[in-house]
């Protein structure tokens, strides 16, 4: 049996992932987090008189704190496996990725373990986020002055 024939055999016996269901679930969970964020921003603006720009910064800090705490208490990984990508994509996912890596390497030394592995997953987000930020900034200057 050659590789192509084997690939067909494997596909035949591999159960299909419920992609539509997972995507819908991720849409609902991600959307719910966005809704929750908006509620917090509105509360900060109306009840505490915080400016909109600052309210979003406070929200970001708040979400990162909550997600990191939930990761370190061991809840987040179970929820991710149920809620799929909806929990990973927003800011919660970024916080979760650094906290989970930090937890893995906390006993391997502050520099050689935790420090060097902290951005193991999030490093790509940072690098390409900064690079694309730079290019869009340049484009912004060119087209909008």
């Amino acid at each position, binding site marked *: 049996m050659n590789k192509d024939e084997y690939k067909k055999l494997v596909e*035949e016996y*591999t*159960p299909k992932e419920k992609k539509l269901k997972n995507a819908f679930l991720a849409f609902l969970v991600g959307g719910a987090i966005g809704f929750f964020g908006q509620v917090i921003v509105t509360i900060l603006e109306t009840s505490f008189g915080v400016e909109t720009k600052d309210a979003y910064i406070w929200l970001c800090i708040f979400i990162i704190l909550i997600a990191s705490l939930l990761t370190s208490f061991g809840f987040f990984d179970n929820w991710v496996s149920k809620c799929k990508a909806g929990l990973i994509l927003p800011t919660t996912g970024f916080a*979760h990725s650094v906290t*989970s890596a930090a*937890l893995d390497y906390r006993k391997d030394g502050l520099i050689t373990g935790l420090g060097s592995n902290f951005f193991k997953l999030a490093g790509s987000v940072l690098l390409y986020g900064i690079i694309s930020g730079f290019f869009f900034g340049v484009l912004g200057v060119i087209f909008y002055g």
Partner: protein
Amino acid sequence: MASKKLTNIYIKDAFSLAGPVEKEGAIKDYDIVIDDYYYHTKTFEQAEIKMQQVVIDGILQRHNLLHSDIDLLISGDLSNQISVSSYAASRYNIPFLGVYSACASFVESLLVASEIMEGKRKSNMLCVTSSHNLSAEKQFRFPIEYGAPKPNTTTFTATGAVCVLLTKEESKIKVDSYTVGTVVDLGCTDASHMGAVMAPAAAKVLIDHLLELNRKIDDYDLILTGDLGCIGAKIFREYVNRAYGLKIKNHLDAGCELYLKSQEETYAGASGPVSLPLYLFNKVLKQKRPKKILLIGTGSLHNPFFMNQKLTIPAIAHAVSLEVKS
């Protein structure tokens, strides 16, 4: 030819330790069960070292054996440079060999020990295997608490350790023959579908074993594969049927049988070198039948570096046959 009929090598006893998920699974009477993945140590890796030492001590104490009574200790695990085995062995004054063929390491250790023992008149040897779900996750996949969504084909690395005492004294379980496997790569690239990666290697060693020792599949009461998982086991049987025209009726996969279907977190079943000996010694050999068993340990030889370099995954399987007297 990589097969050999052995004359008088016996498995005298085995000592098993199982982890928190395994004790909730299909088998309830392991020698020791642990509830804590740290096992009173600081890290998962150190816990696995302790697990190996506990099973070695367990079997030495049960049979009143001194270090000097053991000629050789052969161990294998999934950690980098099989360092768990080496660190565990550092406590014993016993000659040591480390073996690695991923989840086929248990069968590899059995066949290496058997081959070395074959020419001796009197000998005791220990074969040790362990795996730890969380140290393996850290080694091969994402950080543990990350909990990345997994496909249904994923297998769950079993936590446990098993120490087997091989002797030349006659006992109920005879190590009858072995076949060393060949590395097979049929182009799979998905490390979360290891059953598909390993099935062709398992089939190859099965066919080699039957041809080289001139046996038929019906000579065995049970063909027990290591950790193909429930999906991989189906692929294995179908592959053997289509590629070699052989129908297997007497097949079980330890990985598929170790957990209950209700344990959803285990997906397609158990993986890890320890799943085969855990199931073999705590379930199969405690039953009256089967009498003739062919063990096929299956290992996916992938490595995170080569996965990132998009190479296809090679796999290996080794076979050892056992004869059980009632």
